[in-house]
């Protein structure tokens, strides 16, 4: 099968029942997407399929139709996405393990809703667990990213 990942068409030879998470991590070496729970309970594996936030641990590769974007495809250290730039500015990360998923969730939220209310942020982010509890800075970074995106 063929999948489009971060702008590249990739020929995949793998079990169609394999969750996208493990294709990314163990087959393709895109390890920025994290395993945290395997049961849709933490959000660490969040990626985008056609701009929608989806959990890679629950998405079988045989079912995917659409362009996949991972944290590596969102932006890079030299050219970070505005959401990543806001995360860096606010120094959100502590252990950092959940932050790929947090950033992907926030980027999908802001793409659909450029000026979310507090309640909308709560609803969009509640599936993403951070055991270090970096939430105050996540909120600040989402606000900052919204301004960056508005400014273009």
């Amino acid at each position, binding site marked *: 099968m063929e999948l489009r990942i971060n702008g590249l068409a990739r020929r995949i030879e793998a079990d169609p029942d394999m969750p996208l998470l493990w294709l990314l991590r163990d087959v393709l070496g895109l390890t920025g997407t994290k395993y*945290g729970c*395997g*049961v849709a309970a933490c959000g660490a594996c969040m990626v985008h399929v056609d701009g929608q936030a989806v959990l890679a641990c629950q998405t079988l590769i045989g079912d995917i139709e659409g362009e996949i974007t991972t944290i590596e495809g969102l932006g*890079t250290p030299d050219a970070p996405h505005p959401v*990543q730039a806001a*995360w860096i500015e606010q120094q959100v990360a502590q252990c950092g393990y959940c932050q790929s998923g947090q950033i992907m969730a926030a980027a999908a939220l802001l793409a659909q809703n450029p000026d979310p209310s507090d309640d909308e942020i709560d609803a969009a982010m509640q599936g993403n667990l*951070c055991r270090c509890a970096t939430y105050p800075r996540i*909120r600040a970074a989402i606000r900052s990213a919204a301004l960056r995106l508005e400014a273009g």
Partner: protein
Amino acid sequence: MARGFSPGRPRRGGLARAGRIARRSLLIGSAAVAGGVAFGVWRYTRPLPDPFADDAEAIALTPYVVIDAEGITLIAPRADKGQGSRWVQAALIAEELDIDPASARIEAGPVSRAYYNRALLAENLPFLPTDQGWLARNARAASDIPARLLGLQMTGGSSTVPDGFRKLREAGAVARETLKEAAALREGLDRAALGTEDGHVILPGGRRIPYTELAPDAARIEPVTTIVLRDPAQWRHLGKPMLRGDIIAKSTGTQAFGIDLRLPDMLYATVRAAPEGGRAGLIDDSAARAMPGVHSVTVIEGGVAVLAETTWHAFRAAEALVLDLTGPPGRPADSAAIWQALSDSLDARGHDSRNRNDGDVEAALGAGDGVIEAEYRVPFLAHAPMEPLNATVLVTDRACHIWAGTQIPDFVVTQTARLTGLPETAIRLDNQMIGGSFGRRLELDFILQAVRVAQSVPGRPVKMTWTREEDFAQSRPRPAQIARARGRMGAAGIEALDLTIASPSVMSSWFGRVWLNPPGPDISIVAGAWDQPFAIPHFRVTGKRAPDLAPVSSWRSVGASSTGFYLGSFMDEMFESAGIDPFDGLLRACNDDVSRAVIDEARRLCDWRGRQPGPGRGRGVAFCLSFGVPCAEVVEVEDTPDGLRITEAWAVADIGTVLDPVNAQAQLSGGMLFGLGHAMNCQITYADHRPEQQNFYDHDGMRLPQCPRVTTRLLENGPVRGLGEPGLPPAAAALANAIRAATGQRLRQMPFADQIRFA
């Protein structure tokens, strides 16, 4: 003087000398490395002949600074679990070395006893942390010697900063002055006439020589050890807002954690194991073996492993194994039996510790009139760091190479040597960046398991990863406890307070797993209670040791995570009974100026106007001094139609010197929120010797919608301290006190969500 990392002669030896070195912190040396120089410490050499000592290894130099043609590498030996320790260690060295820490490579360095941690043992002495008297100071200084002998290169107890504050700066200063000396000799100038800036020695005329160019010369001269540390007023990086070195990588998915390691020809594995001390029987693995992508199924001590092409193949096949996992004999099997055993221990005669016994509590509480009593319970709690536990191991017939994130590198090496029969020198550990720990990586279980799995495929690297379900099944939780408090108010505040805590011992459980058996009481049971800066005329704190009930371990802030709840809640109950404002009561009880300033600042910061700031709203305050850091926290809750909501929280702590202000605020906030989330929502319960909780859907802590607005403030009046843990202990009590103020309900047992509905 010896050159190179290999055998040489120790510069000096003998116990008398060692005593003086202890105060100097460092026995500085330098060594040539390919194209450059390393500055560091010589391992402490034993004063007595030791038949087990490997003389060659005993005198190797372990570096803090390595300079070669490639650039400058700073060695940060304490593990980074997300608390920013790697960066602050590098910044301490860089400040004196006169480089921008962002310009250097930062590495964890080799496992060496020269990186021993002194501050950790000093915390376990029976002296009040506020006691700066002669006896206490000398005892803390003397704890340097056993720390050296044990060579505890351990990360824990919020000790990285107090341990490294002086010695890492000294390492940087020695390197700087030696590089200047090398330049002075080359140019025929006096070293005093030279300056340094940004990785260069500056000559009087303004010419700049890069350190990298001077490194080979510096390796050929005696290191300059007469150094004077800079006045903090002159710091360029420390104390200023810095961009932590790992932030960009952690915001772009490019930070490699241990779980992200990929090696050529690597197999992926997972293990399902019996409860600690139990037995694992393999009943049927035919379905697992028949699954695609499975390499092999292997029985190891205490569990069964699947090796496969990917982690997914290994997880899927492991689920298909039919196993008989039985619990250890002699331990209670379920929570009801555990609570009964704790209750029995609380009522049993005798005690484990009684470090605080001021006045005469029995007489003061004997009459019975006006005596308040309360009983508190805290549950087991899992660490459950976001990065599932994992280790990658390559075993050959002559060596074992381990890639894993650990807080106890020495033990990894010694216990792997014991397990494999290889000499310690054949064990190599590359410590990895850790995606959260909260104390879980003070355990060896997952690493030794990975070594055993790798032994089944010599010559092939194996990455062993636990499922989240296995992480919960193999919990090494904070101990469940029961505490009983009695007290009486007097005209001048608290007249008498008697606190008794029954707990299984973390020390005996943990040390049992690393094959050590320290004598004496387990001070962690009463830490955060006996050592509080309160002048209460009759004040007694008693620790009672329950038998081993489940494998327990150090969980963020250890004993104070529970004792902070008991004392913080009970004092509030006492103040309320006497109609005293809790801030007034705390300030009246507190006899330490640094702590009083913290309490005062918390009152000012939250603009305190009493327990009830408005209809349906309540505020609570609590204080705890832990790991040498006094910390006061205020929580505000509001009763809403959706349930009770924490709307706002304030935290104030004194850490003496704020080295990395942006990160320090994050640690204080994170510690408090970790305490609030677990107090609200979490517990580990047991059935059939196993934790009943299986994944984040039934033990997650806090999620974003429950997170209040947070305001933090750091003060700098006391000695320099670390902040990974002290933000946690007051949180649960501050919340319970706020809930009492808002609703009238007094919660004495966690998790609070069992008794009250949260929004």
